[in-house]
């Protein structure tokens, strides 16, 4: 599959962009030209040669904080996507095979999770589990999982009635074997698209929750430059306005 993606020019471009993001997440803190926590008298400065993206209200270099914080944001969004994948995909595939009772319960749970108010629920659960990025992202992952449940279920339904799945069934293959050999390969492409979409959502969610004071705590840097109390100064700084998020 990876080979197939790399044969397309758009695929190569996407892999290139992703590689840069991953490299920045790994090497970000090392590449930062300034100490991301180091303050200076030069506050709310605009972009300049010394501070590419300017400085914030405490005189900290925004570019260094962005590089240092990208790891937290990338890891957070990947955690959201992987938890959503694990919680959503397996029940989505099995709901087609394990009978009406399992299907009914999993569909109702997915509907309920969709109906929950996203941020309020995330705030409530992190209050219960303790404030931190892993807890917050776990909650968000569970809330996003209905997307994966529905995508996996729809893709499985399309395959489940196919003749080659019936042929496997007639050979005595178990549900697990059918899911592994025949269904998973067909479910993977739409799930991969949902995964990419969720990682993007994850970036915004890490920023949103940090803005609300959940997850990353000041003065630790994240991809979200405009987190409190910096947010109040965002409108007055050209640098922060231009690069409010990773």
């Amino acid at each position: 599959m990876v080979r197939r993606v790399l044969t397309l020019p758009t695929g190569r471009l996407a892999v290139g962009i992703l590689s840069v993001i991953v490299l920045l997440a790994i090497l970000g803190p090392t590449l930062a030209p300034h100490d991301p926590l180091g303050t200076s008298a030069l506050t709310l400065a605009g972009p300049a040669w010394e501070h590419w993206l300017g400085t914030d209200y405490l005189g900290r270099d925004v570019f260094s904080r962005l590089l240092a914080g990208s790891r937290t944001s990338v890891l957070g969004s990947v955690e959201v996507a992987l938890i959503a994948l694990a919680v959503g995909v397996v029940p989505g595939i099995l709901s087609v095979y394990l009978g009406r009772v399992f299907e009914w319960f999993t569909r109702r749970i997915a509907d309920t999770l969709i109906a929950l108010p996203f941020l309020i629920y995330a705030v409530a659960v992190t209050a219960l589990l303790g404030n931190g990025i892993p807890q917050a992202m776990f909650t968000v992952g569970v809330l996003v999982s209905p997307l994966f449940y529905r995508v996996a279920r729809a893709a499985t339904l399309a395959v489940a009635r196919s003749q080659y799945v019936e042929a496997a069934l007639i050979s005595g293959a178990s549900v697990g074997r059918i899911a592994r050999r025949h269904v998973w390969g067909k479910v993977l492409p739409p799930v991969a698209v949902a995964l990419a979409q969720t990682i993007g959502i994850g970036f915004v969610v890490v920023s949103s929750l940090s803005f609300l004071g959940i997850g990353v705590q000041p003065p630790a840097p994240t991809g979200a430059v405009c987190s409190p109390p910096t947010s109040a100064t965002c409108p007055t700084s050209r640098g922060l306005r231009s690069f409010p998020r990773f």
Partner: protein
Amino acid sequence: MSTDGRPVLQVDDLEIHYGLRRRRRRVLHGVSLSVTRGETVGVIGETGSGKSTFARAVLGLVRASGGRILLDGEDVSRYSPRQWRALRRRGVVQYVFQDPLRSLDPDLTVEESLIEPLLVQGVARKEAIERGRNYLARVRLDPELFDRLPGELSGGQRQRIAVARALVTEPALIILDEPVSALGSANRVGILEILKELRDTGVALIFISHDLGSVAGVADRIAVLYQGEFVEVGAAREVINNPRHPYARLLVGSAPTLRSASADRAQREALRALLHA
């Protein structure tokens, strides 16, 4: 496996309904048929007559609402899904679908599709590949096709692979649902030749078709299914030369290759009027 003379398949008074309550619709009614080892039975009927439903009931894919089905001596009418899986793993019955492209997983190579039933049975991979190659040769295909994907093969090659996949577990009964209707005339003849050879190996075959011409040269007996009931069951020669039920007469009369039994247009219209009456 059954011994000679004992039916591989015995169906008694089979009833199948689809839908619930007011939408409940009878698809098969009082269907009885027995097939012994080495015998080929052709099931003929028009679209919607219940041919595929009959096959699916024998395979346990559709639940019977009445009657009983004995497969290799076992009453499978009330089998649970677990019992069905155990029975299928023994490879007693196999199925060949009408559309050879859709019956093979497009992402699996010929090898993987062909040996899957053997791997499910617990046969070691190396032995399964060996057996798969033998059966590929038996359906007159080049073993080099083993690494190809279904999309790289012709319709005839794909259907031969589907037949080989049904054969590989050495089943007592193979149900072929319109196996040649999606094929061109050259491939059709090739598949029918393979089926004739199969008949001689002792496996029981049920050949489902709407085309009497395809079945006539292969089947020992023919069962005519009309509106969910077997209206005529008899030796192939008898049904073709001396059809008794109006629908069987219409079928024979409509077959262009059976010149001796063909009816002219006026006779066919008279038979249709008789059926509708």
